[in-house]
């Protein structure tokens, strides 16, 4: 599935907010075609990592390379157009636009946006919404959507940008049982269409089932990296999540 070419690579990526170090010399490589899980306790720096990689926040130091070219400090819109799309954990819809328009905006300004007419952008948006089974809500104003639908809208906007790398920030939070399975299936389909995925998720069943590799952050530092099987056995990870008194890993964390 994945080859060994890196599509996204960070070197000693560091971000300070005032006196707080949100990211501390993080070295992370995303290989083309893989699904990489990024996990860690709350406040570990996962969302900051995505914000910095996508140019929405400027890194304090360190390097980011996309397809071996430095994008450190580049404006967010350039990075988005280069093929990196992300979703927001705290959803950020364009509230007074319809669902269709929200997604069309992604299609207008994403990687293929420049060569696409407004009409073509709306057609692309329709396709994405059909794929995500939101067809019947296209005309709704985004403010009417439930949290679950807003999460889905985040995904739709990002997909409409024709990304090569998709950075997903907790798109499954709040989903239950069979919904998680459906979402996993959806992500597998997106991956099968050739998109490299970086998935931040608290739903362990999903992250363990989806990811080829997992990176664990704690207090802004990378504390572990490996296959899902290696990660669940890793004592540092167990300590980070459950405290040191748990000796044996459980299936769900």
């Amino acid at each position, binding site marked *: 599935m994945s080859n060994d070419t890196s599509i996204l690579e960070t070197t000693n990526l560091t971000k300070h907010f005032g006196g707080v170090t949100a990211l501390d010399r993080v070295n992370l490589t995303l290989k083309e075609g893989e699904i990489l899980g990024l996990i860690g306790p709350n406040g570990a720096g996962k969302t900051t990592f995505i914000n910095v990689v*996508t*140019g*929405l926040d400027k890194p304090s130091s360190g390097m980011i390379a996309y397809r071996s070219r430095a994008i450190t400090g580049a*404006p*967010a*819109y350039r990075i*988005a*157009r280069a093929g990196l*799309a*992300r979703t*927001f954990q705290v959803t*950020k*819809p*364009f*509230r*007074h*636009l*319809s669902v*269709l*328009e929200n997604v*069309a*905006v*992604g299609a*207008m*300004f*994403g*990687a293929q*946006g420049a060569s696409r007419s*407004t*009409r073509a*952008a*709306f057609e692309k948006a329709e396709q994405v919404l059909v794929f995500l089974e939101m067809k019947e809500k*296209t*005309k709704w*104003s985004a403010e009417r959507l439930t949290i679950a639908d807003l999460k889905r809208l985040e995904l739709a*906007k990002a997909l409409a*940008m024709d990304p090569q790398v998709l950075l997903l920030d907790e798109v499954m939070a709040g989903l239950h049982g069979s919904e998680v399975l459906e979402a996993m299936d959806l992500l597998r389909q997106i991956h099968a269409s050739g998109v490299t995925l970086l998935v931040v998720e608290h739903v362990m069943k999903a992250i363990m089932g989806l990811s080829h590799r997992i990176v664990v952050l704690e207090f802004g530092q990378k504390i572990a990296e490996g296959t899902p099987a290696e990660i669940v056995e890793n004592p540092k990870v167990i300590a980070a999540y459950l405290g040191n008194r748990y000796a044996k890993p459980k299936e769900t964390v």
Partner: protein
Amino acid sequence: MTRPSAGDATRGEKIVYFIAIAGLLGAIAFPFTAPSGFWLRTFTFVFMAAILAQGWNFIGGYTGYASFGNVAFFGLGAYVTGILMTKAHFDFLPSMAAGGIFCAIFAGLIGLPLLRLKGHYFAVATLGVAVAVREIVSGWDSLTGGGIGLNLPINPDPNSFRQIYFFMLAALTLSILVTYLLARSKIGYAWIAIRENEYAARAVGINTTLYKTLAFALTGLFIGLAGGIYAYYNTTIAPDSLFDITAYTANPILIVIIGGGGTVLGPVIGAFVFQILSTYLSFQFPGLQFTFLGLAMILVIIFMPQGALEYLTGRRVFGLAALLQAPRENRA
């Protein structure tokens, strides 16, 4: 401000556009019905108010940046026109065009640093620019005539008021057309995305600096043009009357609020309501019109903060219930 998807206008919208075209034809025919000077002037000022509101609509209504410095563009447009006509002896039309272009460039240049500011900070920084521009204009005696101002050449046309009427109408029509065309283009969607969530707009690939600056430049262009036409109408321009913040910044914003921001025709509807009403009030209660204006502003904002157009077209509730909805939601 629920907007329908591009391409399929709602029935309400279709009716509005039909009325707009009929209105334009009526406005063209109106001066030939030999109206009194009073009505000709009243409508000239309705158009001017609508241009100022439409100008604010680009940056405030669509892009969500509440500029309080638009009075600077009005004054500068008037002064550039006046200076070119008196000092360089240009004709009116090229002077007016130069005034508009000057204001567009000026807006773009001050926009680059100022549009990095958000919310109140942008509002007051632009207000600050307006105050500074007024002081510089008042102080630069050799060019602007200082506090006394300039006297423009008198319009030689025997039907000068009619001519001014058509200049204003033309500028207004152009501003509506530009708004209409841009609103359904990528540019319009970029503006709305910035207004709704600038952070998310950057994340979907929108060059926010570019589109914000473009919106502000259009604001400058149209308000500058209106200033130039007004200068030719009034023939005397002086800093205190031209840089009147209430008349040329606050009123246009109120007009947009009345009519509905981020819509193509809201500012025009608002301008008609506002200008006719304030003309009536100043006749009925001379001296008290601003007191009423303040009161009206407070009431309009409490009861219909999203503008009249939404109340007429897009709401699910009507009548008293609609009026009471906003204060109920916004209460402490």
